[in-house]
């Protein structure tokens, strides 16, 4: 599978996750979100960028619980809770945000 963004094609797996993390560009995230009917705001980007940094450091996508805790530590307690993250990413913060960030599906994610 693949998605087209600005005339460029990006390979994805069958669930729409980017095949090659290094191919990621901000436009890819925007296009993926658009396809889901979501307009990305600064709050979305905060989480997406956080996920990319997390992956860069640990080479995995975090589980929801870990993401929530880490976001709270980094961006403040008001953002470090599941409700906030689910409102931003209604399909599930780990799954949906990871996808936009170009990360593979988190381990242990159901």
């Amino acid at each position, binding site marked *: 599978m693949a998605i087209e963004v600005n005339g460029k094609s990006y390979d994805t797996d069958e669930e729409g996750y980017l095949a090659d993390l290094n191919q990621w560009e901000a436009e890819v995230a925007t296009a993926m979100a658009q396809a889901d009917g979501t307009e990305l705001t600064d709050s979305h980007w905060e989480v997406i960028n956080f996920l990319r940094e997390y992956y860069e450091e*640990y080479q*995995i996508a975090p*589980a929801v*619980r870990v993401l929530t805790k880490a976001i709270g530590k980094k961006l403040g307690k008001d953002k470090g809770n599941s409700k906030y993250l689910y409102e931003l990413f209604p399909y599930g913060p780990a799954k949906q945000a990871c996808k936009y960030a170009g990360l593979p599906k988190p381990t*242990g994610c159901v």
Partner: protein
Amino acid sequence: MAEPWEDEPEGPVRKFMYVNRRAPYGTIYALESLEVVLIAAAFEQDVTLVFMDDGVFQIKKGQSTEAIGVKNFSPTYRALEGYDVEKLYVSRESLESRGLTTDDLVVPVQVLDKDQLAALMEEQEVILSF
């Protein structure tokens, strides 16, 4: 039905020990173990990791796998703390016979003698060996 952001009722928590005895890249065991550990941790189980025999090589600092075309998963061991997996033990004998010290390792560990490891194993409810 609960909203997705509400915590699910807590299930039983068991004491899981993962015994890692293989070097990281020659076989798939080390990576498989790490994935299973992350899953158990995501389900908030009481997780203990033991690195013994060649398993101590899994957490050797400075791994650089670019030239062999395999993903370097050693940074992931440093993510375990965020998963509340903080009980990491290393066999003293295994470390010493391989010329390593705790300074060579990517994560803080507790070094145990074989008798201490044996006692720790006896305390577990589930032991998975890789």
